């Protein structure tokens, strides 16, 4: 709520070693798509404070997306002119908002992953270190926000407990993909997976909820989001997002 919110501008590009475009695109698409989904909440949040909080998270993610996509090419061309099959985000982030519990479960799974990932990237001096150093602080807040709501909903009323458990179970099968190795990204994937599982297990337990037991990925061998295979709602999301930009080829906004 500053007159010139820092998050409305993409972080300045520092001179860093060239980023592997595959990884930049994958992480950039994750942030772009989740930011878009959170933006859909505007005007619908269950309480005014959450209008502010969800917009805040969406803005952080959009800032990250703009930085990452700019490492690969023109941010608007990448966001608005690619077809569905060219997007490399995980399927988790494209899942529709559902009820507030679904949005919180998606946030819990993703922000926990993102905090650990950026934490690792901060440690090195690779091309993502400058972004990771800034983003890890933002994402720590996102994770804290999601954890607190998981606790309130899990250990709130009977209805909120049931909804939160349903949401955790429903999104569980999209979590395995978070740990697919990314091209030339210097990350210890098994430490990432173990750290993630430990944190999620702790929060879910504290919230008096049960850790889902099903498989963490779908059965289809064609692949998932990182290979450009998305779920049906994603196409409609892109149609809405890209329509205006595509209706005026070459225009400046």
């Amino acid at each position, binding site marked *: 709520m500053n007159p010139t919110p820092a998050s*409305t501008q993409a972080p300045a590009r520092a001179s860093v070693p060239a980023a592997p475009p595959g990884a930049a695109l994958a992480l950039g698409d994750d942030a772009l798509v989740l930011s878009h989904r959170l933006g859909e909440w*505007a005007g619908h949040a269950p*309480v005014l404070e959450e*209008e502010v909080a969800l*917009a805040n998270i969406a803005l952080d993610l959009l800032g990250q997306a703009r930085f990452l996509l700019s490492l690969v090419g023109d941010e608007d061309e990448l966001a608005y002119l690619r077809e569905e099959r060219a997007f490399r985000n995980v399927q988790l982030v494209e899942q529709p908002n559902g009820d507030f519990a679904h949005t919180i479960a998606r946030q819990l799974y993703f922000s926990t992953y993102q905090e650990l990932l950026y934490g690792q990237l901060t440690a090195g001096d690779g091309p993502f270190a400058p972004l990771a150093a800034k983003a890890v602080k933002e994402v720590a807040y996102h994770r804290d926000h999601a954890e607190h709501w998981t606790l*309130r909903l899990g250990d709130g009323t009977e209805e909120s407990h049931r909804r939160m458990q349903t949401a955790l179970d429903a999104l569980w099968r999209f979590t395995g993909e978070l740990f697919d190795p990314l091209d030339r990204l210097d990350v210890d994937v098994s430490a990432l997976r173990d750290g993630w599982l430990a944190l999620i297990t702790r929060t879910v337990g504290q919230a008096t909820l049960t850790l889902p037991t099903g498989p963490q990925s779908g059965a289809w061998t064609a692949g998932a989001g990182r290979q450009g295979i998305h779920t049906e709602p994603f196409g409609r999301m892109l149609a809405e997002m890209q329509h205006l930009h595509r209706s005026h080829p070459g225009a400046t906004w």
Partner: protein
Amino acid sequence: MTTTAPDARTYEAVFDATVAADERIEPRDWMPDAYRASLVRQIAQHAHSEIIGMQPEANWITRAPSLRRKAILMAKVQDEAGHGLYLYSAAETLGTGRDELLDKLHSGRQKYSSIFNYPTLTWADVGAIGWLVDGAAITNQVPLCRCSYGPYARAMVRICKEESFHQRQGYELLLTLSRGTEAQHAMAQDAVDRWWWPSLMMFGPPDDESAHSAQSMAWKIKRHSNDELRQRFVDICVPQAESLGLALPDPGLRWNEERGHHDFGAIDWDEFHEVLRGNGPCNEERISRRRQAHEEGAWVREAAAAHARKHGGTPGEARA
């Protein structure tokens, strides 16, 4: 806080002297019941306008045509939620809680600015809202920074700073469209054509028909009349429209050397009253959407309250 005191006349004299000296009335000060009621009405209407006003703009977040514009628009809609929070808090200092005010909004007993009953049909409407609607709001609100009630005046200082950023981004958005392709220019002109007259209505009915104006002026809640502010706004907009390369849809608009102001055409007050009565293009949608969000969020608020009871916090903390 009780307003009946053994020595009410002394209290009233202190209140009158404070207002006359242009000093601030603070929450714990004695104030006339009617002053309190008038402030609650005005602050509530302002708070409701902020949260209803999120809808027409949020309508375009998912379709914003560039990532930069998307970030600006999201930040703006977020600011409006923040303004709602400050204003509901200012009303709370007068003894009226947010839940009660929201109930009154949802049941139609309190109003919000009628401007938000108009639809945002194209992307250019986002620019027109920033330039004209936020511009009119600023013209209305800058004098409120000197309002006699301290918490409201202080909230307005912060709000006006942010509104002025919104107004600039709206102007800049329209300028980009106006200088863009033919289709973009036409989109911008169409938006200004639709938003100009409703923006002029935002200043409220003419002075001789304004129900609350005289008393509010005497209490220094309000500092200028509706017609004065409307004239100020027109005078500001005319040169800005020229710089934008867009026409204002009023053939009667011309500089009056003698008055030192622009003359402008007659406002369609029938439209104003019809929209106020609920017959605007979006009255039903706006309030239904608000009620729906509130009802669908009930289980979340109940969960937060239940969790707070179990763990010794307050629902207020759980809200944050």
